[in-house]
């Protein structure tokens, strides 16, 4: 089966600070050669800690930030702001996004109806039709149109506003919806309502989701495939069950293990990592995880590990894996004890 969305070698560096000649003094390595594919109707979960580049990746896909390098194609059609590629406006008809902050993503001066009907009108739908569709969509996301249509964003609760944002994203009939921490700000009881809504809408409109979240339990529940990012790079990816049951990368293992048990009486042995995720301004050389990794050896500080197959479509980037080109070198090396990072 061919992929619906294909992303190859996506890269973004943000220059910060300027010297006398206007050259950047430092560079944030936000996203570094990220590649992945999503098949029609599946949900790809992207997890990682703050600063790992998961939200930047989403924004690059939508061209809300211009990528430095990389190819983004939907059904084989390549999109971008470079000659020879299809225009970004077309890309955005097929891919829409819902953000974490439900209030900040709605125009406070537009009514709910205006907000939802705005996009389709830009893309050439008549006003009457756009308004009719807005009403239908509101009803579909569980908000009574006759009650909510004339309301403004500040009159709604967080859960209701996020429903409006979902309706707005669906208004131009996209195939792919990027949900960037879309349920993270909601309380658990409301979060469950919105997650159920997302599952229903996915079936009804045959949607494909990119689900970005730091909540590992929610990602496990909603995703078919998962991609784990660390400091701008993909360290592991694969089908959700395989990756959660059998994480191959030491970082994934520690990350999944760090979630407190949700049932009482199961005391856990935590793998506690030292320190915080390092700064993406000066990422560590070699494997970016090596300063916090308990298995790190000399080679990990020198060379970037290649991404290899664990089994099936489950892949990870670590010298510990037998498939890695430098696996034999890694095995022969002594483990280095390292001081906790400052």
């Amino acid at each position, binding site marked *: 089966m061919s992929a619906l969305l294909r992303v190859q070698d996506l890269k973004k560096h943000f220059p910060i600070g300027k010297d006398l000649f206007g050259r950047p003094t430092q560079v944030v390595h936000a996203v570094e050669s990220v590649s992945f594919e999503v098949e029609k109707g599946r949900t790809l979960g992207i997890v990682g*800690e*703050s600063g790992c580049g998961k939200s930047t990746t989403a924004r690059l896909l939508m061209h809300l930030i211009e990528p430095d390098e990389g190819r983004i194609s939907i059904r084989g059609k390549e999109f971008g702001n470079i000659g020879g590629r299809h225009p970004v406006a077309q890309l955005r008809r097929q891919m829409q996004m819902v953000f974490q902050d439900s209030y900040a993503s709605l125009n406070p001066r537009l009514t709910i109806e205006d907000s939802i009907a705005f996009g389709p009108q830009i893309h050439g739908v008549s006003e009457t039709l756009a308004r009719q569709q807005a009403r239908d969509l509101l009803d579909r996301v569980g908000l009574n149109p006759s009650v909510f249509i004339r309301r403004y964003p500040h009159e709604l*609760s967080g*859960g209701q506003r996020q429903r409006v944002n979902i309706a707005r994203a669906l208004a131009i009939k996209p195939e792919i919806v990027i949900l960037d921490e879309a349920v993270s700000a909601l*309380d*658990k*009881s*409301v*979060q*469950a*309502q919105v*997650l*159920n809504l997302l*599952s*229903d809408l996915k079936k009804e409109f045959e949607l494909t989701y990119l689900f970005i979240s*730091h*909540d*590992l*339990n*929610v990602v*496990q*529940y*909603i995703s078919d495939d998962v991609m784990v990012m660390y400091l701008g790079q993909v360290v592991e990816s694969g089908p959700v069950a395989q990756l*959660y049951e059998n994480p191959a990368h030491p970082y994934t293992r*520690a*990350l999944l293990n*760090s*979630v*407190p*048990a*949700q*049932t*009482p*009486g199961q005391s856990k042995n*935590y793998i*506690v*990592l030292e*320190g*915080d*995720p390092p*700064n993406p301004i000066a990422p560590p050389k070699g494997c970016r995880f090596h300063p916090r990794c308990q298995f790190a050896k000399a080679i990990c500080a020198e060379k970037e590990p290649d991404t290899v197959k664990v089994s099936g479509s489950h892949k990870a980037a670590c010298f510990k894996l037998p498939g890695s080109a430098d696996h034999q070198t890694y095995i022969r090396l002594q483990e280095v004890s390292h*001081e*906790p*990072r*400052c």
Partner: protein
Amino acid sequence: MNPVVEVKNLNVTFKGEEGSIFAVNDVSFDLAAGETLALLGESGCGKSVTLKSLMRLHPMHKTQIEGQVLVEGQDVLKMKSKALSEMRGKTVSMVFQEPMLAFDPVFTVGDQIAESVMRHERISYKDARQRALEMLDRVRIPSAAKRLDAYPHEMSGGMRQRAMIALALACKPRVLLADEPTTALDATVQIQVLLLLKELQRELGMSMIFVTHDVGVAIEVADRTAVMYAGRIIEQGPVQAVLSKPWHPYTQGLLGATVHPGMDRNQALPAIPGAPPQLIRRIDECAFAPRCAQASSRCLSPLPSVNTLTPRWTRCIHADVSQA
């Protein structure tokens, strides 16, 4: 043994231009020495307001507080301002969710810790700085001597929260109040800080009240839990018992709606319909009744008072309390 903290019939009302907000309603609990209580609930349920009342951190002219807050037998709500500032940081100390906002940005972390120690123990600046260094070491901040002269913005989120804990514990308080101290942290850092707090609590033998919305965090740190909804404690008891066999329909609903590993992905989540009520009037009936499947007409009349001194209780009149 006498409890370290006793809260009796606490009511907190905020007076605004557009009317009052009845944030906390008839809240009672106590806390034994060395014990951890988790106040569990969703945003707006009054858990943080309750916690702040224990140190009287609400703006005076806008807040009406009734009831009793006894810390080591002394009523915090009746304290004169001198006794109050003597108590804050010395007997009771607090760790906040956002350490960047809790620290003063223009003083170094070392000086802020030293200031608190000098204030409460009347020792020299030199000795106080020595204590600050010990504390930073104790919360395992790498190269603590160097970090003593760092400003809050020069630290990462996890390190800043450790420094905040060092500040809170510098005078060895009897009670630590923690207001979602790990919510803003990344998963791998959250667990570091949780385990650190548990360890320090054991070492110092202090009591802890931990406000959280995360069931997993409550299970990890607490001995007992009080579940709050719409300004009231609706269920209280040992954390194991309450969270494995909840009595109140809200607690049951909250646990059911929380995504946890091993859930059937093909089944819809058992969400609680509706949303929590606005606290613009004093709610004497069951505030959860409009969202509750088990609600009857009796739930809509003022609820009978419950004996909050038993180890486990709930406000729900329909709860089957025979099965523990």
